[in-house]
């Protein structure tokens, strides 16, 4: 029998969620043994930075999410480049690829997501890539060395646009093929999508919407030389990037008895249906404060927060997850855009307040007096105040127009909202210091 080791905390996944959990655990438990396992061979790096890597070969040291000494300082044993092969819930143990068995008292599943690979003829050809990990970016980078001039990106979502921007910076001519009628259709409203599309076109990108790729062809053995759309349009290219979406990486959990819907279902404490097992990040279906129910919201900040909450609970400090929602900040080709919540209105029970200038646009989506969604373009510096009102479920009916005003800020809100935020200790309040005394009566002519 393989040698059995035991740790108090076992974390599978070494990205935002896993690191969030480590940091929370170490805030309240300095001693309990933590082991973190990842199939990727790198210390925790910032996944969103892979586009910077591809665009300008950003060095790994500048992509690290935490300092080089992170694991040592936090007394964490990191097993990197090893996949977990089997999970045994009843034994509270996992088996790694190399046969090693590790038993745990509390387990966090932060296994993330995996790119969805569509069934397209020729998908296995040389020159077809996904864009999700640093290794993906490295593989594309190496391939670009072969004088690659043209690329097709399948999918006009966040990842598709990120890789497009990086490729454009590397001098590659890119065509985006998007199935729906517009790019970034899940995170942006129609008008803002159009604005990004315009910018892409100005940068020389061809955008084909309402279309899919029927096959990836080759007249050079097995190396990609072009694609054909379902409409029969042939597009010559040497590189194809598949970016149609990401799904929760639940393989390990399948058959374990842990409840899975689209992702691993967790409660407000990030606990799964199985005792001592927690989940967070892209793999988890956690509370969404806009919908008031569990949803997949696979974005970095939610992964970190979910991991943090899971970490506290694993360490025995009951902590409730306030919830997350879809939220993104983009800066493609120089335009700053933030979006959050519901931006494409499902029915007419929503109201939109908006204000638009040449280079800036603010839109706030409201339902029953509460902020349900927001899109800010250009002037985004105060957007966090609106996000906060949305998160705290504050009724904004009385001042909704102010939210999109040019000079919007904290002071635009009713005093009872901003006043408590300033938290001035009573001794510093001015009213105590400047009490008005009765003027002395001046007697004249005595």
């Amino acid at each position, binding site marked *: 029998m393989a040698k059995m080791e035991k740790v108090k905390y076992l974390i599978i996944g070494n990205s935002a969620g896993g690191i*969030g959990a480590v940091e929370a655990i170490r805030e309240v438990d300095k001693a309990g043994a933590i082991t973190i396992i990842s199939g990727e061979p790198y210390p925790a790096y*910032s996944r*969103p*930075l892979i586009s*910077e890597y591809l665009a300008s070969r950003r060095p790994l040291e*500048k*992509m*690290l*999410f*935490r300092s080089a000494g992170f694991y040592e300082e936090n007394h964490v044993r990191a097993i990197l480049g090893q996949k977990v092969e089997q999970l045994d819930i009843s034994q509270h143990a996992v088996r790694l690829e190399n046969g090693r068995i590790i038993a745990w008292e509390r387990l966090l599943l932060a296994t993330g997501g995996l790119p969805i690979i569509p069934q397209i003829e020729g998908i296995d050809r040389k020159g077809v890539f996904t864009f999700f990990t640093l290794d993906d970016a490295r593989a594309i980078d190496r391939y670009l060395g072969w004088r690659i001039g043209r690329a097709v990106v399948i999918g006009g979502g966040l990842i598709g646009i990120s890789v497009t921007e990086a490729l454009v910076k590397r001098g590659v001519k890119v065509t985006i093929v998007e199935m729906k009628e517009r790019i970034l259709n899940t995170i942006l409203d129609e008008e803002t999508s159009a604005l990004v599309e315009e910018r892409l076109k100005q940068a020389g990108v061809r955008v084909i919407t309402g279309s899919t790729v029927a096959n990836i062809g080759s007249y050079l053995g097995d190396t990609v030389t072009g694609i054909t759309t379902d409409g029969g349009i042939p597009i010559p290219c040497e590189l194809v990037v598949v970016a149609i979406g990401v799904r929760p990486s639940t393989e390990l959990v399948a058959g374990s008895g842990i409840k899975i819907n689209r992702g691993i279902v967790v409660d407000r404490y990030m606990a799964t249906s199985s005792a001592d097992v927690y989940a967070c990040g892209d793999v988890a279906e956690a509370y969404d404060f806009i919908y008031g129910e569990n949803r997949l919201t696979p974005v*970095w*900040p939610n992964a*970190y*927060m979910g991991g*943090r909450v899971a970490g506290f609970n694993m360490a025995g400090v009951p902590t409730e997850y306030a919830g997350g929602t879809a*939220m993104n*900040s983009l*800066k493609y080709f120089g335009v*700053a855009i*933030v979006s*959050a919540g519901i931006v494409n209105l499902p029915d007419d029970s929503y109201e939109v307040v908006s204000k638009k200038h040449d280079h800036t646009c603010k839109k706030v989506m409201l339902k029953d007096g509460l902020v349900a969604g927001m899109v800010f373009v250009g002037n*985004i*510096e*105060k*957007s*966090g*105040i609106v*996000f*906060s009102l949305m998160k705290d479920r504050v009724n904004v009916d009385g001042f909704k127009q102010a939210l999109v005003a040019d*000079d919007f*800020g*904290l*002071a*635009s809100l009713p*005093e009872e909202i901003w006043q408590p*935020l*300033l*938290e*001035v*200790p*009573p*001794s*510093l*309040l*001015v*009213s105590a210091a*400047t009490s008005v005394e009765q003027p002395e009566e001046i007697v004249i002519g005595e």
Partner: protein
Amino acid sequence: MKRIYIREQVCIGCHLCEVYCQVAHSLSKDLIKAFKRESPQPLPRLSVEVSKPVSFSIRCQHCEEPPCVYACLTGALQMDAGSGVVTVDEERCIGCWTCILVCPFGVIRQDTHRGRIAKCDLCAGMDEPACVTNCPNEALVYAESGAGALTKVGET
């Protein structure tokens, strides 16, 4: 930790805090040079909010549970474990603006020239933040948090 408290009742919205913040974060530390010669002009790390008759000057509150640090994609934003000050590593910030979206105070600035954020650092290395020192009406107070003690630096 010491925090900057706002006494909005006596703020007259003169924007001097903004001017001195810019100078304190300029290369030259000289008022004339900072405004006339430096390009790009240093960005103030605070903003003066006006909604007449109310006005106040607000900057990073160095939250105990900082949403910006938790949301930061690159790890550039960190909370110093010892001092509680929320700092940004300018080398690692890529200007993705995710922190801006989650800041409930709306006080993180976009330094578009340098492609990164600019935020209050409580004037690291100085005894008292420049905005506090130069507020003509004492509308800003630099004091120890929690206890509510009105002890300004230099008076202890």
